[in-house]
């Protein structure tokens, strides 16, 4: 008699967790060992229960789902993570972060159960129809990293970025770097465009994310 697959459900919606728990528990080879409504709780549960598979929603109330993947994998590297979301959001990012499968919540019972088994066996199940999106997302990610080989930001843009992160105003930056206000503004626009940011705080967080500063 083989061991049951131990499952942890991580979703902030109780109604979803309940439905899933019943569904999975009905299968003889599956066992929901715990539930978590947020990432902090999930981390504790993983520590305590060491499940085989985690079903994880991308949207979590406390920590961003993508980050949660990395945190969970750090705690328990052999943990298999199956993303379960309403929308096909952050698909490529999730897979890059270490998710093993990606399923939409409106999948049918057989798909869900099959995906849990598959992911436990080391496969990477995915909802049908997500393929094209995955390819385009990866293509743009690849392009970004190819661009990353050339200096991502010019030296001057880097100094401006660092100053922004330090909370300097346009005028202060201009004074510090001996540039005119207008050229500082130009550089800032260029940085925003490069980072895909819309404002200073987005630019800073994006810069941190990319390990630029």
């Amino acid at each position, binding site marked *: 008699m083989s061991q049951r697959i131990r499952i942890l459900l991580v979703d902030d*919606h109780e109604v*979803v967790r*309940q*439905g899933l728990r019943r569904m999975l528990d*009905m299968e003889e080879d599956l066992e929901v060992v715990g539930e978590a409504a947020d990432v902090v709780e999930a981390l504790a549960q993983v520590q305590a229960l060491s499940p085989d598979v985690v079903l994880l929603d991308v949207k979590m109330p406390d920590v961003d789902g993508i980050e949660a993947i990395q945190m969970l994998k750090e705690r328990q590297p052999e943990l298999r993570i199956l993303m379960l979301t*309403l929308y096909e959001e952050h698909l490529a990012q999730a897979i890059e972060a270490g998710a093993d499968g990606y399923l939409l919540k409106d999948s049918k019972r057989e798909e869900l159960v099959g995906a849990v088994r598959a992911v436990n066996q080391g496969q990477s199940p995915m909802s049908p129809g997500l393929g094209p999106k995955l390819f385009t997302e990866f293509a743009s990610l690849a392009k970004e990293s190819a661009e990353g080989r050339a200096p991502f930001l010019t030296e001057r843009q880097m100094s401006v970025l660092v100053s922004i992160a330090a909370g300097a105003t346009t005028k202060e930056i201009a004074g510090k770097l001996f540039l005119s206000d207008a050229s500082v*503004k130009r550089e800032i626009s260029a940085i*925003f*465009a490069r980072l895909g940011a*819309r404002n200073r705080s987005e630019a800073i967080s994006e810069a941190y994310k990319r390990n630029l500063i």
Partner: protein
Amino acid sequence: MLFYKFLPLFAFFFQSFLFYTVFGVRRKRAVHYALAVFVGSMALWGLLIFWMRGSPTLGDALSWERLVLPLFAVISYSFFFFTVLFTSRSLSRRVWAGAMAVGLFFMVLAPTPWVLQGMQLRPYGYAPTIGPLWFFWIAGVYAPALVSFFYLFRFSRSTASADMRNRALYILVGVGFSFLGATSDYLAALGLLPHPGGIYGNLLFAALVTVAVVRHHLVDARIYVRRGVAYTLLSLTVILPYVALTLILNRQFQIRLPLAVNIIFVLGLAASFRLLGGYFQAVADRWFYRSRYDALQALHRFSQTASHTLELEELSESLIAAVKHAMAIDTVHLLLYSPERETLSLRRSSVLDAASFPPFPAGDLLAKRLKEWDGIFYQEDMEVDPVLRGLSAASWEAIKKLEGQLFVPLKSGGKLVGVLVLGPRSSGAPYTQEEVGILATVTNQAAVAFENAKALDSLEKEQRRVLLLLSRTVLAQEDERKRISMELHDSVAQWLVGASYRIQNVQKLLGEYADSETVRELSDIESTVDQSLKELRRVMAGLHPPALDELGLPHAVRQAAERLQSDGISCRVETKGEPVRLPMGIEIAAYRLVQEALINVQKHAEATRVVLRLSFRADDVSVEIRDNGKGFDYSAIVSSPVSDGHLGLFGMRERAGMLGGILKIESKPGAGTLVKLSFPIPRTSLTEVSEDLEAEKHEPAHSYTPGR
């Protein structure tokens, strides 16, 4: 003796200078050509007399004299033609041709023995011996000159223009001297005068005409004087060595250059004008205008910048650099005047940091004084100016900090645009009247350019403000939609998911025990829930496309297209160029427009195929939505009273306008529809605009501090 011999050469150079000056006039009219021929002949006369006087034998002298006498005819008749043209007399063609023929006749007659019998040696040098027709010839040559004198005299009496009168009188006196001189030449030859005076007359004429050109703008040749100088320099450098060589060969070795060599020399001279002209022009300009040359060059560069740019930044930089260079000073400041705040603030400076220099207080007396002041303010004058006595201490402090010597107001149409402040000369020398004049010219031009640039600047700001306000409205709307979408996502959608799972669990539990009716009912419920979920997802995506936030316009458009696909319309998306992220308001507006177009396709077009084309170019983005549906009569729809179905089109137009873009809709019944939107990529991001607006809000706060 030497003086007697070389004076004609000097006359030649002097007259050549005049010739070049007149000939240098760009748009020459007949009067210029006549004057050029006249002056050129005078020059040639000088040169020929020089050669004649330097001849070793009487025979040589005779051959030169044979060339000199026909020149008199040319001089006299060309002067007649010049006078006629100059005094704007009308002569019939026949008279013109007659005068020409008579002139030609006397020219040809001159070297014949009837007029010029030979040469004789007089105490002063060679002189002609006269032939039997001499006095007839003299009468023929003098007649047109006398008629010209009469014309000029009449003209000088009748003309209303003082300038014209002066010019006429100068010419009259000058030519009078030349003819007196020429008369003295042959009186001397007849032994009636001890010395010929022709060359003196020639020189006097040249001097008087030069004055007329320079002081009284004769033939508008003033600016071509520099050209005259250049070519005179060129002639000097080319001819003097030649003359020296001829003299040395002649005197020391008794060698006379054959005619062929002389001709080759003249050809070489002509060629050298082309080759060396530009170089000598630059030399002459530098010499003629001295320091002004560099100044003019620098200011010329500014004029060029001013004519092609409306960027305040670039203009300021260029003006400061030009003035710095032209006046050879270190300190130049540019202050611009803001009529709204009634204050001057430092825009750019060669030494100070413009950002940290506080603006003058609003309604400051300095600006008021400069507004009503015509011309340039000297620092010394400012200190004793009665109006400026009331200036606040803070303003005096600021003026001191500028270390200005000259305050040059920039005025456009009488309105104060700004002030150019010039510091002291490093040499300590005062500004010359000429420099101040140049400054006035440049500042006039600068004022107009700055006025335009400022207008454009404020227009751009206004446009950006409108864009910002619109975007804010749209963003607020979008925020609300996003909030509703999230709420649906977090509540109803999840509940539906849970319900779907539960139903499937029940189905599993019942398994084969259930009767077929229960199973059917359950699967009906299941599909209803599924359908609800699907519909909800669609609504949510419509409310706020998650892909737009995450991946930008192309992805969001692709997703919208995919949704169309599920309705059985095949949809292809093509992206051209490098997609860039645009400000949020813009992406949303563009996306909404595409969405609207797709809804129209879905609702009205009965299409089976849609092609969506997104093109990103350097400055703009275009979106094309083409379907193969039934099309419609666009003009009929636009002119018909507004009905619900057409509001979509108006909404699309509005959004396109908000993007500052163009919306083109092409459709014909039965021929499908093409919707094409193109809009510019904004040069500044909206964040920046809001920063600008924020900054403006704060600015007055510290501009009021001094003086209040």
